[in-house]
């Protein structure tokens, strides 16, 4: 494929307003959307604001909406578009805009601070920690999360309802909570938080988060639904509630 010109419309603006602006640059072989953004920066708009770090899908910094679809810019190849197609790049919508493609994602960090910490049980008698691979496989899936917040971005509970942010932690945090709850060594109890403050009941399992996860984590099936079941067991299962009177253990 020879170098060809690409036409990109990039959102420029800040909290007070903005617009799509047209840019045309040469696209070389193998380029991803982030390469084009960098070319625009270098050639046409030195001050075009964008976050990026690893450029290999490992850090989760360069989330944006490309032709309306939430994606990592570094993992979106230009050859997935039609030749001559105009490509739009806009900031992720759920979080307040700072400038151009950069948004204020502090919501996610605030919610993370509210998660009760990992609290391991005592070590084995021989002083080691023994865990078997098959027991940690499911938690390792959650640990793959690169915190790109695309799942948060598409979650309609907060995407279209700013007022819900107060009472809802979002898919990323459910993945984190599931990782802790299913960690073979952990002894902390987060079921109340999951129900109340994290508001898992708001989620009605539309799986939008799972669809956009660049790490292909089964967010809904493996994290959210099991957490919902734990909440149901604690709050709505009469036998479990009775047992709960005698034991404060979570598992």
């Amino acid at each position: 494929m020879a170098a060809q010109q690409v036409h990109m419309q990039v959102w420029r603006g800040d909290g007070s307003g903005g617009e799509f602006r047209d840019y045309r640059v040469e696209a070389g072989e193998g380029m991803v959307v982030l390469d084009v953004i960098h070319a625009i920066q270098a050639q046409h708009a030195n001050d075009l604001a964008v976050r990026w770090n690893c450029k290999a899908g490992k850090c989760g910094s360069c989330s944006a909406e490309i032709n309306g679809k939430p994606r990592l810019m570094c993992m979106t190849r230009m050859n997935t578009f039609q030749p001559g197609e105009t490509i739009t790049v806009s900031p992720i919508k759920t979080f307040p805009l700072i400038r151009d493609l950069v948004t204020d994602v502090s919501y996610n960090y605030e919610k993370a601070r509210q998660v009760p910490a990992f609290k391991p049980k005592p070590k084995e008698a021989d002083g080691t920690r023994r865990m078997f691979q098959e027991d940690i496989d499911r938690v390792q899936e959650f640990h793959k999360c690169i915190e790109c917040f695309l799942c948060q971005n598409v979650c309609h509970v907060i995407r279209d309802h700013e007022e819900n942010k107060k009472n809802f932690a979002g898919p990323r945090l459910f993945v984190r909570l599931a990782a802790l709850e299913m960690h073979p060594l952990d002894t902390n109890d987060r079921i109340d938080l999951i129900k109340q403050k994290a508001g898992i009941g708001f989620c009605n399992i539309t799986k939008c988060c799972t669809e956009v996860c660049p790490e292909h984590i089964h967010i809904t099936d493996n994290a959210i639904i099991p957490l919902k079941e734990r909440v149901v067991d604690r709050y709505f299962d009469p036998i479990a509630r009775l047992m709960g009177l005698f034991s404060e253990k979570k598992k």
Partner: protein
Amino acid sequence: MAEEKYETHDYDVVIIGAGGAGLRAAVEASAQGARTALVCKSLLGKAHTVMAEGGIAAAMGNVYPEDNWKVHFRDTMRGGKLLNNWRMAQIHAQEAPDRVLELEEWGALFDRTHDGLILQRDFGGHRYARLAHVGDRTGLEMIRTLQQHAVHKGIDVYMECNLQRLLTDGGRITGAFGYWRETGKFIVFKCKAVVLATGGGGKAWKVTSNSWEYTGDGVTMAMDVGADLMDMEFMQFHPTGMVWPPSVRGILVTEGVRGDGGTLKNTKNERFMFNYIPEFFRAETAETEKEADAWYDDKKNNRRTPDLLPRDEVARAINSEVKAGRGTPHGGVFLDIASRRPTEYIQRRLPSMYHQFKELADVDITKEPMEVGPTCHYSMGGVRVDADSTATTVPGLFAAGEVAAGLHGANRLGGNSLSDLLVFGRRAGLYAAEYSKTVKGAVDVDAGQIDLYARELLSPFESKGKENPYSVHTDLQDCMQNLVGIIRTESELKKALDVIGQLKERAQNLKVEGNRQYNPGWHLALDLHSLLSFAEAATVAAIERKESRGGHTRDDYPNTDPKFAKINIVMRRKNGDLTASQEPLPEMPDELKLLLEEKK
């Protein structure tokens, strides 16, 4: 005075950089009771550590009970061509296992052995399978664990805050100055101690695995307040970066591919590494393919495959193969695991490599070989530190991780970086906190100094020049790639110094568009100061070392020289001028020398 003009914070210890070293330092300083701030250029959890793939080297002996700190010490020293600071190498090898186990106490989930312990994988230059890992995303596990632990400890984190200058009073650290990326507004930290955990400067090269953050800030800030630098000539070119397509050139391909059975081949389908076994490693390296392949399962009766020679050796070999015309059309060589391991094994052990090649290069690594070539990866050199305390030569200034020099000598072994971050990050936090307790009374910052720095940082907006910061950066990358690359020679190095001089002139005439709010053009304009300083230091040091050793290969001095085996190149800035001097290595105790002499 300063307080009225700029947002000002007061701490005991300020840590600059929130990768593995910075996070571990913050956790420790805070645990010691120091009022601690952690300041980072990106969002928390996005630092370079997140990209680390292969694992954390620590002689835990879970897979090979014969392993212990002495073997790890020996491997590290030999990998560094004996130029390492012996005391750092000793501390590192002794403390790494505890640091890994500590991560497990904080929630990390490493891959497991059959009896439920932390699994360890083979890597270049390590005699035994030694790297604690999680598939090929170990850095992500490490940074997330540290990040969450630090957050739960209530440490104050300043994200997307770029500190650009250190403040001093009478040669002693009193704070740091920089700007918020979001608003462009200035921020002043008054503090008793600063820990530099800023990483390296690999973004001065063109083909690099490093991100925009690797602009040599820590090295430059330290140099600008009079700290010694050391070993700046040693730059690691990782042998396996992606080479095709051009847009991904330089992106890292983990050494774990070779650790897990992958092998390098040229276009004649030869496993060429057998032709590049240096005398130094001959006794411990397999001579036949049969022995090399048997080594993966039986380390007692076989020697290590030459595919896993230290990185400097492998990078040079690939370079030679390509030059000899046995490289791929895209200028790399083949890395083949597809024909050697089952699909399921590759996908389980190397999921992110599988994903990366599939998505970015349309290559299925379970079916076809990868194309790879050297990429600028890691700076062995940096700020000179005390081995035990990580103290630099400036009172109140500490440094840990890639920004510090000494542990890795002339060449770093894979896996020794993540362990370095943990071991010396902890020590930096500990000793910075201890030092801060010895500083009596409140520190004061010099308002005049701050005003001067504020003017410097704003100057690109006021300049009448027309230089585009991106163009200056690109020209610097071309210069370092072409003239200060894997193979160096005096005339080219001197030419590089001339070019860097010209680029410095051009950097005085930058034009920045827009305003101070989240403006990458302005940020790059400011970063050019440190990129150029880092590049200059690396080049001057490279001229000074007239031999070939580790990550420094001279075409005009192709052999190691016993005279240079005993010295470090130390650099400092005096009255604006950068000077280089040769200083003797610290004398190693006899009992450690014996460890080095031990046969395989």
